[in-house]
């Protein structure tokens, strides 16, 4: 695709004359606090996301320990509710979204031949307010009355009439997370639109850049709506307004409309960059160009546009006219068309390719298969009459964990394995990586697949107890959960080893079939790259 003819400033030492403000990475803790370097900020985001992934995972372990056996075993129901709520909030806003932002920080400038992000100081801010948001959220768990316990969707009146005083902290932390995401998204858009290397037209951009551009537009469109929703919850709870209170003329169902107007585009915010990652990895290890590049771009844009007109499929059981239910059902099913185009293109890229199965490719293939399973259960949920049966059961839990864990999270792991050698200059420990892959793959299916069955049989979600007939399945689900949690510690060891620069040195291209600007610069990637833009032909 893109070929570089001229990269004179790849090694910044080569021409130190005109940019003497450039130097290597400063030392000490202040390097990380004051940094405006896109690579440093990318690293910070990725480490933060990983720590949050482990914290949110620990909460999932509490949930699975409680559900290991029927009956109330370990924690009281109110704490259980806090665990399900904060687990969801942390995984969505603390793990998956910052991980994608971290990848964007590291990769977008290198992929489009830009020296850094467009707004480096804002970049520093958008990362450094994030730890405070989660500190506030997590600290609420230790207050009298406990943290938020109304589910990550904070439906009114659970979050208004029936919530504790810590709701104010929850609202404040969501505001900060939203501001962080919006600033990150603005940065990505400005970088991509204004800082591409000469010759890098929009339709020559790598798919990861395309998907992130579209994701960033989704972010600036819907994160403000989330901010509006939490603000209304705040004023309803503490300042006597009645947005969602029927007694004062409001409507609690309206909360769900506003929330899901944000919430549905949000789920695509968490999967479109994953599509981009897979579209980078599959061609490399198939040694072919991506099949149907243009159709990939249009499919991504269609998914993003359609995501604005399907929100009410989360609300079929609230009571809607049949016409509206039909509209939202068919609009939702329509999304499977561009998604199907993507899956088809990935498979077509592999077709008659010269395939090898390095670790990133194994995660990518696992993604394609398991994400498709999650997509199919999503199609089942889209069918209105069927949804009345599935609504609020473990079937829904199985569905969104297949698309978010074996979808988004697996794609992030694939991305880390794919680009880690470029970042550190050393090949990661392949043996550990294989252990991590196979343990994760097996345990994640033991964890989430039986949830389909208990869900179809009627086990409700977000309840700390269940009927006796679900006991065997839940035992296996919990065992799968503990195994999946422990498997991630292998990943932690691997990453720590990689950060200590252990392992075999790699070439600039790292992977035999890899193409793109980021593979033309040295490994490890120098602190400053593309001070002079490359010319892309």
């Amino acid at each position: 695709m893109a070929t570089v003819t001229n990269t004179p400033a790849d090694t910044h030492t080569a021409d130190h004359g005109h940019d003497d403000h450039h130097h290597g990475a400063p030392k000490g803790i202040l390097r990380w606090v004051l940094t405006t370097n896109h690579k440093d900020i990318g690293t910070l985001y990725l480490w933060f996301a990983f720590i949050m992934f482990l914290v949110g995972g620990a909460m999932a372990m509490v949930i699975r320990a409680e559900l290991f056996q029927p009956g109330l075993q370990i924690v009281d129901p109110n704490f259980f509710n806090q665990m399900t709520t904060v687990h969801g909030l942390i995984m969505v806003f603390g793990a998956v979204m910052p991980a994608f932002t971290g990848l964007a920080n590291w990769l977008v400038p290198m992929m489009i031949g830009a020296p850094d992000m467009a707004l480096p100081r804002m970049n520093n801010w958008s990362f450094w307010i994030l730890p405070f948001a989660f500190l506030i959220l997590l600290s609420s768990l230790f207050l009298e009355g406990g943290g938020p316990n109304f589910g990550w969707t904070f439906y009114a009146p659970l979050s208004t009439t029936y919530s504790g005083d810590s709701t104010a902290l929850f609202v404040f932390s969501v505001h900060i997370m939203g501001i962080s995401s919006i600033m990150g998204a603005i940065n990505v858009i400005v970088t991509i639109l204004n800082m591409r290397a000469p010759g890098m037209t929009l339709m020559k951009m790598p798919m990861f850049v395309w998907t992130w551009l579209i994701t960033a537009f989704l972010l600036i469109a819907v994160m403000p709506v989330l901010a509006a929703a939490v603000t209304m919850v705040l004023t309803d709870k503490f300042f006597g307004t009645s947005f969602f209170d029927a007694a004062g003329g409001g409507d609690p169902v309206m909360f769900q409309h506003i929330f899901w107007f944000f919430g549905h585009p949000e789920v695509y915010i968490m999967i479109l960059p994953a599509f981009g990652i897979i579209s980078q990895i599959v061609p490399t290890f198939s040694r072919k160009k991506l099949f149907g590049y243009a159709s990939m771009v249009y499919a991504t844009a269609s998914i993003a546009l359609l995501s604005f007109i399907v929100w009410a499929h989360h609300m079929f059981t609230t009571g809607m006219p049949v016409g509206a239910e039909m509209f939202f059902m068919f609009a939702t099913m329509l999304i499977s068309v561009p998604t199907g185009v993507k899956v088809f293109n990935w498979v077509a890229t592999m077709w008659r390719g010269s395939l090898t199965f390095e670790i990133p490719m194994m995660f990518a293939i696992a993604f394609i298969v398991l994400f498709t399973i999650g997509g199919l259960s999503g199609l089942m949920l889209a069918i209105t009459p069927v949804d009345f049966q599935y609504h609020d059961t473990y079937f829904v839990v199985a569905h969104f964990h297949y698309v978010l864990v074996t979808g988004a999270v697996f794609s992030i792991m694939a991305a880390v394995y794919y680009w880690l050698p470029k970042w550190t200059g050393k090949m990661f420990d392949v043996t550990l990586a294989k252990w991590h892959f196979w343990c994760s793959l097996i345990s994640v299916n033991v964890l989430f697949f039986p949830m389909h069955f208990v869900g179809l049989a009627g086990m409700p979600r977000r309840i700390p107890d269940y009927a006796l007939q679900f006991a065997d399945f839940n035992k296996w689900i919990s065992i799968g959960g503990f195994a999946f949690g422990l498997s991630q510690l292998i990943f932690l060891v691997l990453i720590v080893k990689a950060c200590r620069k252990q392992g075999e040195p790699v070439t600039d291209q790292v992977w035999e079939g890899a193409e793109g600007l980021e593979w033309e610069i040295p490994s490890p990637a120098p602190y400053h790259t593309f001070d002079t833009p490359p010319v892309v032909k």
Partner: protein
Amino acid sequence: MAVEETNSDNQKDAGDMPTNTQRPNHAKTVGKLVFVVVAMFGFGFALVPLYEVFCELTGINGKTSDTAAVYEPIEIDKTRTITVDFITRTNTGMPWEFKAVTKRVEINPGELSEVAFYVRNPASRDIIAQAIPSVSPGQAALYVNKTECFCFRHQPLKSGEEAVMPMVFYIDPQLPEDINYFTLQYTLYDITERVDEPVDVAMNSIQGR
């Protein structure tokens, strides 16, 4: 659209941008994006009146009109009989006793009908209540015209008081063919702390028992 526009700008910029010392105009792009963010935050709040207007026009959230309709003698559709059930409930923490005196009516569209609801305040404090109507299926709400209803204003009751509250309504003959049966539910909310008016204001529409 914005993408294409900025792209053409960018290609122009990129042409005469040999080094990164000449930076393209980020401020312009950022300005546009910040405008989108502010507009979408406003849109989040604009959804509230939009939702209300939408529901008022379509009646899909089951709310009936909160102002009195004027009954002009219209032709009564004797060919259809509509069954209307009346259900009452009180919100959590609302101590009143609240019952429908008339549990069910069977009326023709266009025919005026009067029903009554009984309330008693058994609590030791004076309470102001607000009744919120809800029609199920929601589409029928548009065709319920109330000429008189206790729900149009607050309902104050002193400690120990009781009252019978009337509601007069008729069904618009335009009611869709497939609806022959609907439920009208009232929920009573305790709004004493929300309103400033003293409890001893007489309840206009109440006839003592």
